[in-house]
């Protein structure tokens, strides 16, 4: 399976280990992984600020980088959601439509397309709180949301439960937003920080040693809150655990 | 151009493309119309249910339930009380009523609601100025749910119609539940077949 790797801008700049883990994991699973070198960003920072037209050049570049691939995979639910649902600042040609349809978030790709059943190299003997980013949860529907009474399902949990030694703890408000929200984290700093404090305290009180998520943006915000609160809780991306990280 | 014409013209101009009206199912397959179901749901809303008196003397039962009352006003001939609803000229006169008595036309099992209108109340304010309300309900006159309830022709015939579900209540201060906000403090339902 040939896969184009989409590494969001903030992961490229601040959390390269998440991009590395994603690439190595896909390779371990037998994928041929190509990283288009001229990629930059999906356009979300401009679009989410209402600056729809200013996202056009970035979106055009995204399509140019990823055209022709059957699968485009990125370790970020919010970026993938933007590509699939909101990449609309450019004319919707057949090529644009194809790229948009073929862009997957890592967990949904592993669960729905590769249908991974085991990660023999992985072990994570720690108590873990699972955080599903809101867009990944409610828009990409990677797990049951508490607002809707439907049969329980969780793609990230399905994958993580195949990791040796992992134990899950459940916070009091498992899918309340953690307060990152992109620019919200800065322009609505008081509420954002309070939400982050509440979230990490909730995980901590539930006994989590680690919080794992498929979205680095949430993790970055929660980590920053936990460190300020001096809570002994660590943060890790799901790609890193599935790729064999022990801590 | 009157405001009416202006508003209607603008609404007509701005209305989006028509959307169809769905047909609404009754959602009552397998639902209970039993008094027990009604009682459970009424209790959840703070209403009480009391067994009818073996001797059929409702006046005596009411005095037993409310030993310190002075004014009992009944809108149904089944209870005499000591203030006749027929003497009431203006609703404000009901302000001193301790216990109001009325017969509901029907109940709704889904919610524990009672249906009443001016035909039952004679003076509607009886259901709101009374400190306590006693409601007679025929246990056979219960519909399953709100969909059934809203089929009743009373909604096109009555001047005023109300679903009462338990006593008046509020939780506006710190979420603490209070019974007896502006209206009745308690509601007691007695299952008695209608004549």
């Amino acid at each position, binding site marked *: 399976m040939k896969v184009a790797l989409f590494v969001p801008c903030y992961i490229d700049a601040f959390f390269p280990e998440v991009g590395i883990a994603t690439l190595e994991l896909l390779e371990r699973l037998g994928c041929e992984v190509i990283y288009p070198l001229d990629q930059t960003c999906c356009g979300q920072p*401009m679009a989410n600020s209402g600056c729809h037209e200013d996202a056009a050049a970035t979106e055009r570049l995204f399509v140019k980088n990823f055209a022709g691939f059957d699968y485009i995979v990125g370790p970020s639910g919010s970026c993938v959601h933007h590509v699939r649902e909101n990449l609309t600042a450019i004319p919707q040609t057949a090529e644009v439509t194809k790229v948009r349809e073929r862009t997957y978030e890592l967990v949904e790709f592993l669960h729905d397309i590769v249908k991974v059943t085991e990660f023999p190299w992985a072990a994570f003997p720690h108590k873990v709180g699972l955080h599903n980013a809101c867009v990944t949860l409610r828009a990409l529907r990677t797990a049951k949301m508490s607002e809707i009474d439907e049969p329980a399902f969780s793609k990230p949990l399905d994958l993580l439960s195949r990791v040796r030694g992992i134990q899950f703890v459940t916070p009091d408000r498992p899918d309340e937003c953690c307060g990152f929200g992109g620019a919200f984290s800065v322009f609505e700093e008081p509420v954002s920080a309070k939400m982050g404090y509440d979230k990490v305290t909730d995980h901590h009180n539930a006994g989590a040693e680690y919080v794992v998520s498929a979205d680095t943006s949430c993790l970055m915000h929660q980590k920053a809150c936990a460190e*300020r609160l001096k809570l002994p809780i660590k943060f890790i991306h799901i790609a890193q655990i599935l790729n064999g990280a022990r801590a | 151009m009157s405001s009416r014409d202006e508003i209607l013209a603008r609404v007509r101009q701005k209305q989006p493309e028509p959307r169809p009206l769905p047909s609404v199912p009754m959602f009552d397959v397998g639902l209970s119309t039993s008094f027990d179901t009604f009682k459970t749901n009424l209790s*959840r809303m703070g209403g009480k249910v009391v067994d009818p008196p073996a001797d059929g003397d409702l006046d005596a039962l009411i005095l037993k339930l409310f030993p310190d009352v002075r004014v009992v006003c009944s809108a149904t001939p089944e209870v005499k009380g000591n203030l006749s609803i027929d003497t009431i000229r203006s609703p404000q006169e009901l302000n001193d009523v301790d216990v109001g008595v009325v017969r509901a036309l029907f109940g709704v099992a889904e919610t524990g609601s009672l249906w009443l209108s001016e035909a039952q109340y004679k003076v509607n304010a009886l259901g709101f100025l009374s400190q306590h309300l006693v409601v007679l309900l025929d246990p056979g006159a219960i519909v399953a749910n709100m969909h059934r309830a809203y089929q009743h022709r009373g909604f*096109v015939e009555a001047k*005023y119609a109300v679903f009462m579900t338990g006593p008046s209540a509020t939780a*506006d201060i710190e979420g603490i539940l*209070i019974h007896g906000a502006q209206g009745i403090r308690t509601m007691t339902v007695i299952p008695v077949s209608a004549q």
Partner: protein
Amino acid sequence: MKRIDHAEASSKFIKAQDHLDFHDQRLWDLRKKRDRDSESIPEWQELRSLASAIKEHTLTHLADFLEEFERNAQANGVKVHWAKDASEHNQIVLQILESRRARTLVKAKSMLTDECEMRPFLENRGIEVIETDLGERIQQLDDEPPSHIVVPAVHKLRTDVSRVFAATIGTDAKNSDVHYLAESQRQHTRPYFLKADAGMIGANFAVAETGTVVVCTNEGNADLSMLLPKLQIASIGIEKMIPRVEHLAVFIRMLSRNALGSPITQLTSHFRVPREGTEMHIVLVDNGRSERLGMADFWYSLKCIRCGACMNTCPVYRRSGGLSYGATYSGPIGVIIDPTFNLRKYSALPFASTLNGSCTSVCPVRINIHEQIYKWRQVIAERHQLPFVKKEAMQIAGKVFGSPKLYRAAVEALGASVEHLPRFMLYNPLNAWGRQREVPPAPASTFRHWYLKNRTKSGQRK
């Protein structure tokens, strides 16, 4: 018109720890009660779809339904008035009151009358207006607007209410027992019900088929306001129409379950024909609703049945309080309605959201709230009302991310020191970020660097 600064107001709210904790917990509790009710009704999702479809049908045929409603209300002996805007609404209400020399008005909760700022208008013209809903009364006596559309004083603790009542209706300042306070308001308000010249309600629903006004309350104050005074007024937003009596079942089943997690309100009252010897008036109010009906992206907000579920679930609302939005309608529904009243004043509100989508998932009439929030940001950017970032900064960002070379240069510059961001970011967001959080360190190398070192261009290991 000064822009409402939600972030600033929220900062104050958050500093009052006890109030914040209570507010957040109380509303989350209502959310959980709503969840429990949704789980007890197998047809819950179908009811949401039906409620949404009935509203969409009504709104897309609104003119016909308004005329039908008027016809039937008039046939019932009710006088029907039409108000283009808030000012005309207030004038009409005043004229109705003056026509019967009414000096005291008891009223039930009506967000529409708050929206029209009716109370100060009437009070300035010698009408005594008594809010009879406990929460609204607390707010009236404290000279504060309501903070939540269902529980208006949810941001107050009992000690606050005690303080307000002691200063205004003569309760014991040392007594903050909730039963005592509620009983005091009951006793204090009862005489007003009895002697009021006029009573006023809003409407949860208006049934076109019968000309009926439907109000859902728990306290009994709407009925007392209508069943005692000889002069009765109902103020109704034109979007409150529903076609037939049978449709009420869908909405009545959904309203209180979504608002409070109870199957129905204690009272569901249907006013159709005035009592003999009394007079009933209905004022149908537009005040921007017809305009909103024509907005392709935003007309769905007119489906709102004012249940408040979106507020209860919103993590931002729970931690900032309704008053921080500076508008009659707050929380998620407020965010998508208020810009239609005043775009500049409310231009920060669509950014007081993380776009988490919980509101959309709980809305009983399936309003796509968070998607409309996203679209409002575009409108605000297009009309140059962006509250934070300068449009120019976004244009530059767009160019940088749109060019591989410029992007790589910017990322290299970051590597030097993360505290010094590129100059085009006129506002250094890390100043705000770092107030309550640690700043992430810039790593030694980017992903791209690592890739070029460890893989060939065709993805082979080196």
